[in-house]
């Protein structure tokens, strides 16, 4: 059985009399340590998938089995714990706490975990050891995103979810971030899912899941994923 098994999930939003199907019958599986890109245009439903995978939302139908546990049956508290212990999240807009230094932002996440990584080590891994006492406002966008990644990694999660991690960054910085993610995935055997609308990024993935209008359009297994430095931005 795959590490992540998504079976026939649907998400239906009931807006009064109208019901909108955000995704319908989405099924895929992801192996441990895989770098997966979920690709799709705006409004295709990829964020919904991410939300459901990240335990921020629940599917209306279907099951999501992660490491043998069906999170689709989780209640609010269980979902919170799931996010807390199993998920690392990297936001498009970094979502750092402005009032905390880089290292404190990392600690913020790690201090609630069961067996976190050392904050400083993690920060070192993303190459920001020297800037650990800087506040987000004193860091560039790429640096902020790296802190964000460090924060996600420090939790020592089972799954790293990245929502358009390069969306707010210029290509050069974006590349650095992608490199970091790919590196981490490979070195730490960290299952990583990147959500993006940028098809180029999909080239670095082990598996690409294409979503269109709430349906799985295609699932491509990339036997030879490119290294970030090799892709053409």
């Amino acid at each position, binding site marked *: 059985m795959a590490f992540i098994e998504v079976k026939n999930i649907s998400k239906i939003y009931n807006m009064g009399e109208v019901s909108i199907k955000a995704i319908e019958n989405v099924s895929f599986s992801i192996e441990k340590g895989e770098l997966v890109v979920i690709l799709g245009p705006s409004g295709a439903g990829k964020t919904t998938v991410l*939300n459901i995978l990240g335990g921020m939302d629940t599917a209306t139908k279907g099951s999501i089995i992660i490491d043998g546990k069906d999170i689709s049956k989780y209640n609010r508290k269980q979902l919170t714990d799931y996010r807390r212990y199993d*998920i690392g999240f990297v*936001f498009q807009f970094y979502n750092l*706490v402005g009032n905390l230094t880089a290292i404190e932002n990392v600690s*913020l996440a790690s201090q609630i975990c069961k067996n976190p990584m050392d904050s400083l080590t993690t920060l070192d891994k993303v190459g920001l050891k020297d800037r650990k006492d800087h506040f*987000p*406002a004193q860091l560039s966008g790429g640096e902020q995103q790296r802190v964000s990644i460090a924060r996600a990694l420090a939790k020592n999660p089972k799954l790293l979810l990245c929502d358009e991690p390069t969306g707010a960054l210029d290509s050069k910085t974006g590349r650095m971030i992608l490199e970091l993610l790919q590196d981490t995935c490979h070195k730490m055997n960290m299952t990583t899912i990147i959500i993006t609308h940028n098809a180029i990024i999909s080239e670095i993935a082990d598996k690409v899941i294409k979503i269109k209008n709430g349906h799985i359009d295609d699932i491509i297994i990339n036997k030879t994923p490119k290294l970030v430095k090799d892709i053409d931005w």
Partner: protein
Amino acid sequence: MLLLKNSFIKIRKSLGRFFSLIFIVALGSAFFSGIRETSQDMIKTMDNYYDETSLMDYKIVSTMGLTEDDVNSLKELSHAYKVVPSYSYETLIDGNSTKIYAITEEINKVKLIEGRMPTKNNEIIVEDGTYQINDTITLDSSAKDTLKNTTYTVVGTIRSPLYIYENKGISTVGDGKLDTFMYIPEDNFTIDYYTEIYLIASNSTDKISYLDDYLEVTKLLEDELKNLKPIRETARYEEILKEAMQEIYDAEEELQTKKAENDQKFLDALEEIETNEQKLNDAKVAYQNGVNTLNSTKQEMETTFANEKAKIEEGRKQITSTLDKYGIKENQIDTTISTLDNQINSLNQLLNTLDPSSEQYLQVQEQITTLTTSKEGLNQLKTSINTLNQGEEELEQGIATWEKEYQTNKNTLDNSYQDILMGEQELAKGKEEYNTNYQTYQEEIQKANDEIAKAKEEVQNLEKPVWYLLDREDNSGYTTFYESATKVDSIASVFPVFFILVALLMCMNTMTRMIDEERGEIGLFTSLGISKGKIIFSYIFYVLIATTIGLILGLLVGYYIVPHFLFGVYTSSFTIPSLITYFNLKASIIIIIVCFLTMSIVTYIATNRDFKYMPSSLLRPIAPKMGRKVLLEKIPLIWNHLSFIWKVTIRNLFRYKKRIIMTIIGISGCTALLLTGFGIKDSVNSLLDKQFKEIQTYEALLFLEESKEGPTPEITELLSQNNITKEIYTNMESYTFKAQNKTLDVYVMAFSDITNINNYLILKDLEGNNITLDDYGVIITQKMAELLGVQKGDTFQIRNSNNELFILKVSNIAQNYVNNYIYMTPSYYEKIFSSTTYNAIMINFPDDNIEEIGNNLMNSNNFSSIQYTKDNMAIFEDIIDGMNDIVYLIIGFSTFLAITVLYNLTTINISERKREIASLKVLGFHDNEVSTYVYRETIILTIFGIILGIGLGLSLNLFVLTVAETDEILFVKDVHFLSYIYTFIIMLLFTVLVQFITYFILKKINMIDSLKSVE
């Protein structure tokens, strides 16, 4: 137009914010308008009632009643609008001291609550809540001197403008406290003088009672009355003096006449008695003579009889001896004689036969002679026996006759003796009767003389009648009401300002946040070329809609609900009509203008700030606030020991300085309001205990009917009969002093006993040391010393009612909270006022039977009234209840404000950090962890605000109390420890409550928001 439409849409979208704006404005304006208006409404309501019932402005009573002449001269006064003479009578009915008034048609009109007005003389109307219609009221028979009827039927219940307060003042009957009042038709009064005259001053009805205008108008009449007073007093005095003297002269004349008549009668009676006595004495003498004569006659007779008897006895003896000689017995005499005769005869015959010369013859002849002699002797004896017998018989007859005569005489005498005895008895009786009558007569005359003498003395000592000029302020209900109303006002006046300030601050906060949130929209509008003015106006429009709704609500609540709430307190102790609320247009226009202006300005300032930036920068999100290290981080000793969360909290605390300031000001403001509320409550509540349990500890003041030089045996006996001991006589008089342009009242008290004064009055200086009275100066009370600005050793002036000036020296200043007093020794009193008499007695009761003992004492006629300390307390308690209620209102409003402020601050805090919170949730923070992350700061700020607020509250409390203090009352400015605790707990409770509410708001924050862009 679209912008305005946009504003309406904003309202719909941000109902929470919109309502919180409305609520703040409503709260502020309701509080401000309501509290300011309450006292106005109260005064107007009462003025309305007074006008409706034509409450008198002045009342004149006199110690000797009032006459038609008085009425006429009063009617001539130019400022008198109405002059109405009337009657009243005080008596005990079912144990209640009751004042019965004559119904007056045009003044002091009563309000019928139930039933109807009396139409017949035996009908009565009573205070509402005392008797039922158709009840029968029976008066003491002594009422007959004043009233035609003593039995009445209740036909209606009423309330009277004279008695709006539960404490109805003093009474001359019962326990000295008036319990209730009744009205009967005027015809019932039979006394030939009026007991009172009521007056209404010209134009006074047009003025609002209590206010300066009213006082000005009535002052005109008062001046006239004061001028008329001595004239009428003298006139009445002369009239009474004339009447009294006439009566004395009549009495004297009558006495003389009576004396003249009766004296003669008694003389005649005495003479008769003497004559009778003389007669009796004569009779006695005659009787004695009779007895004497009778006795001597008896003796004489008895001697005579004895002699006779002796003679007879002697005769008998001779006869017997003769008989013995003869050797015969008496009864043998005749036989012997016969024998002798025979012998003689025989011898004669013999003789005849014998020679005469013979011897024998001679012998015989001799024999015959012897025999014949014997015979003759015997005959003689016989004769003498007869004679003797006859004599004896005669004697016996004589004795019998005598004895008869004697008996007759004796009887006669005995009878007359009986007569004499009877006569003596009668005489004695007569004498006794005479003596008794005479004595009675003398006594009567003495009495009459005494009475006349007394009447003369009374006339000589006849005091001038005194007119008492009483105005409305002598009615404790009238003044207490005003006191209560203004006390509310003075306390309340400070709060609204504070309140409005906090409200304004909150409004500013809200608007700033709103504009921060809508930064992008403003940028968009600006970039679309919409003018700055229009954009700002759209926000002002938004605010003003909220303000308008808030004001409408606030003013309605303020003018129509708040006054009722405050007024509700008064209806318990006052018998008054329902409150009439007025919409104070002038005040509300001012409030509206002020609110509109300040809100517009606040909005303008908040909005205008954004126009410093170019539209493009406005379109971009606000750069996140630079995180900054706090000072504490430089102290590693502390910082390194803090948990991570605490570090974050401390860092966060200092992130938004404006928010810190807002929170602290808001919370500390509410805390200060709350603490002040509690503080006022503490002050006024401890005031009474301090004054009446720690300073003036006497339980009652007995006012003497007549001033005394000192304790009298009668009163001492009376008091000890009621187990009252150690009483202290005091002279208590009212004087005035001038301080700060006001004429104020002060009680002067001198005491008969200085050493034991501690039983009744505990004098302590301002530091709390016990102080004593000395003969070199007076002890004055704290507030008075403050007002006069005098210290130990200074002198000051007081004046009596005749405006005479007295100068006193301050020997010490004593703690005191209610009223102003000057205490002194009797000798100092004498030195200053040149006399000492005592007019009151301070007493403590032996047990709780206060009423009963009070009645006993009042029944003795020694006292004119009793002033119970507990009644005094009750009066103040009512004022204090009023104050307490305003305090509850303040606490209530502060509570609302506190909740609003806390809610507002927390929601702003949350809205500012929505992203951050959402991120935390995504990171897997539990709901309670997220909440603590946010609350921790709020709670720290709240606690800090509370601590600051307590400090602020203490100053505010002091300020409010100083403002609210009157010239008679000194507040105890201590805040109880419990009040701090209450304040703290209430604030904390609200904080927790608000956090509880925000917990759900936090819970609802959508994590997915964190994925969105910053704006």
